[in-house]
């Protein structure tokens, strides 16, 4: 919609050629005027503002989720007396995830140099504030656990590990709250589902990462299968609400039916397990990107906030 002479000329040419102008919001057929109205809002223009977040945020949702779930897996594995390398790897994934998450979030800020303002107040009403504090706590605990392990300080390691697991549960779930409790229609509609959906996605990606690192613990396969089973259900829920996003469909297939089938049918096959783990990881990553993109598309459509059901002309 740039006000260039080119644009005007383009409209004039179209009007001359076809006798009508099809540009958005212009209803030339039988009417000289574009018209706002109850049935299409203010010229069909967006009522809401789309999210300004770029690729860093959905990537952070993925990394932070996997890290959080990994911290929980580290504690569960340690308590069950599992292989020491598995526990250590899980702990390191958690710490590495926290280390990657922070710069991702900072670089997406409009004023990155003011990132510390995030910890200026603690506001339980703001999911973004809760998230910033959760990440701060998680980052501290997860890295302390790794450092304490290197220094063989077992008590410190275990206390920090427990802290990382607890805050990790927050890391894997709060992002669903962050999207759900907004004015963006497609996110708000799925407010009951998003935190669980993202948690399942986080568990699947953490277990898959550990499997790809060569760990064949049955618990990992069990967790990944459980998460994939939930994703099959989530896919149905999303489809039922009428969301038409190709990316979301692809993400659903990769997170749900594909890894689940591979795990059930190829239970003894190493290759099937690897393929399932790769599918889950890809699905989990695409899931976060697809949801953020769905939010952008949803914000551009004024029908939901205006309570309109008719299609826009």
């Amino acid at each position, binding site marked *: 919609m740039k006000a260039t002479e080119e644009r005007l000329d383009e409209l004039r040419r179209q009007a001359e050629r076809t006798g009508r102008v099809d540009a958005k919001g212009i209803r030339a057929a039988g009417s000289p005027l574009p018209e*706002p109205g109850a049935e299409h809002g*203010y010229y069909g223009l967006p009522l809401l503002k789309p999210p*300004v977040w770029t690729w860093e945020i959905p990537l952070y949702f993925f990394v932070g989720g996997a890290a959080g779930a990994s911290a929980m897996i580290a504690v569960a594995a340690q*308590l069950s007396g599992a292989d020491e390398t598995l526990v250590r790897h899980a702990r390191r994934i958690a710490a590495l995830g926290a280390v990657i998450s922070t710069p991702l979030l900072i670089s997406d800020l409009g004023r990155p140099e003011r990132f510390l303002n995030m910890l200026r107040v603690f506001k339980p009403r703001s*999911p973004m504030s809760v998230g910033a504090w959760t990440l701060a706590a998680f980052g501290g605990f997860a890295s302390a656990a790794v450092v304490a392990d290197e220094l063989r300080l077992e008590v410190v390691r275990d206390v920090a590990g427990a802290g990382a697991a607890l805050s990790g549960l927050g890391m894997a779930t709060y992002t669903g*709250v962050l999207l759900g409790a907004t004015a963006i229609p497609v996110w708000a509609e799925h407010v009951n589902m998003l935190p669980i959906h993202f948690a399942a996605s986080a568990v699947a990606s953490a277990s898959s990462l550990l499997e790809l690192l060569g760990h*064949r613990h049955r618990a990992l396969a069990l967790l990944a299968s459980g998460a994939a089973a939930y994703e099959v259900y989530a896919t149905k829920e999303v489809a039922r609400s009428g969301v038409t996003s190709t990316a979301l469909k692809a993400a659903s297939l990769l997170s749900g039916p594909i890894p689940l089938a591979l795990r059930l049918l190829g239970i003894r096959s190493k290759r099937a397990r690897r393929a399932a783990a790769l599918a889950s990881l890809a699905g989990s990553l695409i899931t976060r990107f697809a949801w953020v993109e769905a939010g952008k598309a949803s914000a551009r459509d004024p029908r939901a906030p205006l309570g309109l059901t008719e299609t826009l002309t």
Partner: protein
Amino acid sequence: MTTTGFLTDSTLCIGCKACEVACKEWNDVPDDGFLWSGLSYDNTLTLGASSWRHVKFVEHQPRTGCGGNAPGHSTWQFSSDVCKHCENAGCLEACPTGSIVRTEFGSVFVQPDICNGCGYCVVTCPFGVIDRRPDDGRAFKCTFCYDRQKAGMEPACAKACPTGSILFGDLDKLQERGEERVAWLHAAGMNDASLYNPTETSVGGIHAMFLIRGDSRAYNLPPKPEVPTTLLPRAWTAAGIAAAAMAIGSLAAFAMCGSGRSAKQ
């Protein structure tokens, strides 16, 4: 301090856009592109980081009696949009830095020295008002001329309005005045006039009310705006369930499988 408000009366607006210009001048707001939209005389199109007042041009097919036009002429209705300064403001609730505050005048104000441009207010405003300015990085919207009000002056847009369409004053008095005006318009035969102030929803009323004719949706004013904070109990319940399932699931999976590996491969 009394709570102040705006009453923007579309039946008095002549679409001169003096409010848009006065706002830009006083607040030193940069231009946000020179657009030709083809949508009546509206080339501002929407409120945003660099448009804090926006005159809507609601143009209709000939409708006798509406807007005082002769039959055969299309009708014009103009309405100057602005931040609603909600009683329960989504942006204020969501702001993680505490940059967005409620002033002593009851308005919602973004402190530019604190905002770090996280963008969360953008998705929590049910009216699509606040936005991040791309070249600056911070979020901006109408300040309700906080600086002018501090000095006892009315906001720049109200000062510049040549027809008295933008009224500024004590919120309660403006509400009364708006209701009186609607009654007067109804008596004059303009039965489609109404005061837009969603007090029945979780937004709990707005400090910038609009007197409009016809359906509010033609002005992109949502009939039922809700503050997203109302979704928090449901969202956190779901998060709690998810966290519990994750914790129990992880502990149970490892407890069941012991330290054993699956079949040797």
